[in-house]
């Protein structure tokens, strides 16, 4: 597969003007210290022929390559190259962003509409130096039987990966996506910059389950925007349980249509040396739109800022925010920052936040039933991370819980 250069219109002037604009949150990452070019990697018709090491890493992030019969499509980007892309279901399109921009003239209308190119230096960098990304689209009325899987993989040491993903669920469609972002198991640094723009049209439904599985020297700055039209539904499940040097992201979902629904579930585990600043923002502009933003954070020595923001600007909107944090051991920090803003009478926004240790009373209660202290603690931690996910297909739910179970060994 030949390399395709983006042809969509990028607001270059805006991007250039923002090239050194600091982000509102998170440690400033010096983009220039990373390598920007790398060789093109060969396309693989059969992804199970990728190296064993890469497949194992991808598996940890929920991407299954040995048998993709339970997937409606697969796309894998390693460094800057799309090394595999396949749709296995009619009505579902899966391809690299560059190819999609070449194929569809209209696609440029979707670029930088949900995320501002000049939001900060990272969006600007992706705008000016985009290296592919994935395009996933469900045609009107199409419904995925199995999830589409996407993987963004950092192979080369010290590389900056600058992807731009576009996800479109046309009217009345249903799209389930599982995304794994991961890296070769190395000690070297790397930078992952990912812009993702979601367009959920009238009556469409998208579930997006993202598993991040990094290594301790990787810096990560995803920038995500979601636009949900009337009666549309967006469910996000985000899991990060492996060490990472620094990650900061604060996706924003806008319910622009009436009765739109957004739900963010985040499961965050920070080990010593990991710095995480992770939030979710929802703007309820459509009448009767509603949201739930739920995060569960555990630190075993790392730092977590768990942000949440809900803004209600239309009649009959409803939103609830829940941040719960557990400090298990070490000198970790959890800082929960739940924020609510209402601009209208008759809206219903609420939040609850709690940060603490495991209650001794609960541990003893389980020990009274014959569990050892370690078993009791592990049971409580597993329960804490067991966020109920409404509307997720059973296979995807299973997939996510498998990823959590694999990672949680070693927390307690």
């Amino acid at each position: 597969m030949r390399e395709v250069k983006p042809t969509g219109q990028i607001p270059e002037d805006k991007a250039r003007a923002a090239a050194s604009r600091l982000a509102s949150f998170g440690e400033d990452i010096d983009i220039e210290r990373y390598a920007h070019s790398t060789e093109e990697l060969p396309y693989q018709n059969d992804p199970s022929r990728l190296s064993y090491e890469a497949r194992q890493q991808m598996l940890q992030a929920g991407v299954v390559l040995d048998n993709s019969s339970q997937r409606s499509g697969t796309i894998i980007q390693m460094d800057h190259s799309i090394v595999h892309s396949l749709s296995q279901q009619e009505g579902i399109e899966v391809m690299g962003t560059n190819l999609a921009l070449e194929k569809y003239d209209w696609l440029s209308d979707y670029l930088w509409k949900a995320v501002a190119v000049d939001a900060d230096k990272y969006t600007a960098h992706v705008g000016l130096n985009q290296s592919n990304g994935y395009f996933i689209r469900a045609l009107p009325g199409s419904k995925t039987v199995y999830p589409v899987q996407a993987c963004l993989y950092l192979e080369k040491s010290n590389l900056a990966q600058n992807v731009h993903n576009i996800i479109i669920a046309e009217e009345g469609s249903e799209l389930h996506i599982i995304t794994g972002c991961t890296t070769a198991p190395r000690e070297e640094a790397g930078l992952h910059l990912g812009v993702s723009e979601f367009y959920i049209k009238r009556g469409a439904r998208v579930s997006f389950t993202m598993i991040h599985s990094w290594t301790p020297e990787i810096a990560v700055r995803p920038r995500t925007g979601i636009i949900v039209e009337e009666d549309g539904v967006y469910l996000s499940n985000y899991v990060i349980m492996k060490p990472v040097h620094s990650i900061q992201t604060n996706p924003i979902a806008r319910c622009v249509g009436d009765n739109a629904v957004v739900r963010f579930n985040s499961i965050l585990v920070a080990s010593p040396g990991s710095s995480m600043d992770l939030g979710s923002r929802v703007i309820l502009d459509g009448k009767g739109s509603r949201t739930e933003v739920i995060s569960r954070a555990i630190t075993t020595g790392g730092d977590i800022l768990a942000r949440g923001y809900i803004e209600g600007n239309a009649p009959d909107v409803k939103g609830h925010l829940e941040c719960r944090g557990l400090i298990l051991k070490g000198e970790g920090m959890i800082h929960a920052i739940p924020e609510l803003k209402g601009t209208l009478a008759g809206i219903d926004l609420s939040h609850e936040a709690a940060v603490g240790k495991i209650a001794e009373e609960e541990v003893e209660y389980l020990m009274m039933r014959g569990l050892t202290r370690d078993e009791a603690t592990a049971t409580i931690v597993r329960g804490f991370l067991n966020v109920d996910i409404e509307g997720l297909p059973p296979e995807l739910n299973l997939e996510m819980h498998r990823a959590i179970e694999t990672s949680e060994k070693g927390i307690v």
Partner: protein
Amino acid sequence: MLEIKRLSVAVEGKTILHDVNLSIRDGETHVLFGPNGSGKTTLLMTIMGSPKYQITGGNIIFMGEDITRLPLDEKARLGLGISLQRPPVVRGVRMRDMVAACAKGQMDEKTIDSMVEQANLTELMDREINYGFSGGEMKRSELLQLMAQRPALVLLDEPESGVDLENIALIGKLINELLEKDCPLSYRKCMGLVITHTGHILDYVNARTGYVMSNGVIGCEGDPHEILKTVKEKGYEECVACLVRRASNA
């Protein structure tokens, strides 16, 4: 057999129980009466091994073994089980997982299902444990966990408190099942020690011996129905006054 010999217990440096003696033979159920704050829960929690309760003197012998200093979970594995008066909510841990943990793989699914049905808890099995449970649901959940655990010594802390009349008969039935009341006494192994403030549970569960506890001391020992009759007629004040009289005459 359970033997408690001259047991003294302190909480945060303050002595709560003084020289408590009590023994329960295999298959017997005993009842502990007493006003609020008299030390009944302290006695049960100490037998169970909760670390908050410091044993300052005496011994607990269970089936011939001195278990005075054994940790909580080891006691549970030896065959002690407790139903708490106010069990904590454990968010995220479902009833189903808890019951399975109690059974430790020793019970097949069918047996567990029939116990769940018996306790009328089928609809609660996917709920987080004790989260939003009514008083009756909480007590039935405690008893179901004990039924899965199959302890040889059952400690019940006010199993009827907060339970409406409709539920109390079911609670009584579950307790009888747990205490093997259908078996003739000579075959029965399971021992029970039940705290009751009101005595209502005695309408459903037979007990051999009753005690009145006051200010951390066991005063009376006798027929539980006789004790309950006195308490109902004269109140716990009279029991306490009687104990004081006996102490000053001694």
